[in-house]
């Protein structure tokens, strides 16, 4: 396959069609992914209410690639995963960073729900401010503030690895956005979210361009991506429409290939470009396209600028690692772990007598008899609380395991 672009008879028509449908496809992907993340949060809340759903990701943190920083830190220092996330965010990090190394920050432009909601507030801002939208911050100030992302990144990495916890939750607007109705989000995170959304009415994606630590990480990786927005100098008429359209203020018109770490691959520059073949999202530099059948250029640029192509690329690359890990058994979501048969060595202090008996495939009465506990004892008691009863002060968790491992206990 020489090209990933839509196969139509005429490349110029294909580019025009792509420019027409791309924004709609991107919007659809953004909405779908935002709802997907909402589904994860709601399934978590259902679990809190006792309804356990078989989900791929057990928690919002588990789909947060940035939570993987904490997971990596803890794995290196303690050899353990963070209970809230398991290993899923490592796979998600692998997917998003792998994607970024290949095609740039498509995650930011096409998937990130916080980026999406800023886009939607930006649409409102455009209606309110008209041409003044996204021009209220001087370019020099904007450029300077974009470096704050690296400071935030350094701070988050430092604090997260130092305390081995999801430290950023305290200020994370992404977490606040999906927990604002639960009361879990701290006022500090809600304040950051509120400031971000209000600022989005004036400036495109203020969080992404100035503060997002994951965006900083993505931006660094994106500098290496072989697929990028490329400009064909021969076809370009220097109309500046691409530069004006760029929400991040990147001077697309003066570069052969966009290497700016702020680029989110939203492709609004492509949508705005009036010349077919002047701009494309390709592996190799594009050639000018033509309506003349005799001028057809060989499709060797490996363009992924088509809306459906880009959507397929972003979704496949994001979900492929975690999906493959799940399919091969390398990754088991936390909600599925409970389904496995319980081993005596895995009996933990916070399990109830009822859970242990169910996990071992015996009745509660049988378990109580094995442990020589009164038959009327509350089976919902946690193992760690059994010893709080004076009669069973000796029944600590190791003693319970030992009793269950005894030959007559099997």
């Amino acid at each position, binding site marked *: 396959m020489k090209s990933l672009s839509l196969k139509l008879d005429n490349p110029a028509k294909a580019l025009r069609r792509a420019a027409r449908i791309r924004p709609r496809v991107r919007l659809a992907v953004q909405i779908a992914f935002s709802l997907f993340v909402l589904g994860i949060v709601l399934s978590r809340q259902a*679990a*809190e209410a006792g309804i356990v759903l078989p989900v791929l990701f057990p*928690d919002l*943190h588990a789909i947060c690639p940035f939570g993987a920083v904490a997971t990596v830190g*803890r794995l290196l*220092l*303690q050899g*353990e995963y963070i*209970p*809230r996330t398991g290993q899923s965010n490592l796979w998600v990090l692998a997917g998003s960073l792998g994607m970024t190394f290949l095609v740039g920050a498509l995650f930011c432009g096409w998937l990130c729900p916080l980026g999406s909601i800023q886009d939607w507030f930006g649409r409102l801002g455009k209606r309110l401010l008209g041409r*003044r939208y996204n*021009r*209220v*911050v*001087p370019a020099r*100030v904007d450029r300077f*503030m974009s470096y*704050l992302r690296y*400071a*935030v990144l350094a*701070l988050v990495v430092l*604090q997260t690895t*130092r*305390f*081995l*916890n*999801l*430290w950023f*939750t*305290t*200020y994370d607007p992404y977490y606040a956005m999906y*927990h604002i109705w639960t*009361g*879990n*989000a*701290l*006022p*500090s995170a809600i304040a*950051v979210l509120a*400031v971000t959304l209000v*600022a989005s009415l*004036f*400036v495109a994606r*203020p969080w992404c361009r*100035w*503060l997002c630590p994951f965006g900083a990480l993505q931006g660094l990786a994106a500098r290496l991506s072989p697929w990028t927005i490329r400009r064909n100098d021969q076809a370009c008429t220097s109309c500046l429409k691409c530069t004006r359209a760029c929400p991040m203020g990147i001077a697309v018109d003066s570069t052969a290939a966009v290497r700016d770490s702020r680029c989110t691959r939203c492709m609004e520059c492509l949508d705005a470009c009036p010349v077919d073949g002047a701009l494309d999202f390709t592996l190799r530099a594009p050639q000018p396209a033509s309506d003349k059948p005799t001028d057809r250029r060989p499709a060797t640029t490996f363009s992924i600028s088509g809306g459906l192509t880009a959507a397929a690329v972003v979704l496949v690359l994001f979900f492929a690692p975690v999906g493959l890990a799940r399919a091969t058994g390398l990754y088991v979501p936390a909600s599925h772990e409970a389904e496995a048969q319980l081993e005596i060595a895995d009996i933990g*202090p*916070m399990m109830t007598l009822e859970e242990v008996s169910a996990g071992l495939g015996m009745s509660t009465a049988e378990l109580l008899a094995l442990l020589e506990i009164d038959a009327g004892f509350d089976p919902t008691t946690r193992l*760690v609380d059994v*010893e*709080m009863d004076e009669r069973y002060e000796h029944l*600590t*968790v*190791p003693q319970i395991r030992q009793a269950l491992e005894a030959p007559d206990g099997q």
Partner: protein
Amino acid sequence: MASIFSKRTAAVAFFVLVAGVSAHACILTYTLIGPDGQIGIFPGRSAELVTGESYTIEIAMREDHNRCLIEPEDTIFLLEEARWRVNRATQPLVLLAPIEWVQVGSREFTATIEFRAAEPGSWTIDVIRECTKGGYHEKLILEAR
């Protein structure tokens, strides 16, 4: 308008950064104090004790989310998977006084654990706060020689 907005935005960004730098960590941090002064202690790393000596662990806790469901007093301390209880003679690290929590800020608490290293060996203390919002579980490993 442009300059005013940029100053405001810069101020907000600066505030967020400064607040981040000055904030304490969420959840729990531990400091082990021995007869000769402070010994650093961190979850997952071991700290050395001298058998027969008495020690103190100072704990600082900060809630990292709203509506915490677990009172500080409900934090569970397990020594070798058994509840760490006062003067439990069968335990290798003997707890000398009940663990009491003090609120020092709106979301900040401290506690002090006083204990004596009674037996040589490698002993694990599990600190558990179980709740439906993710909870907390850390291991403190103490090596008594």
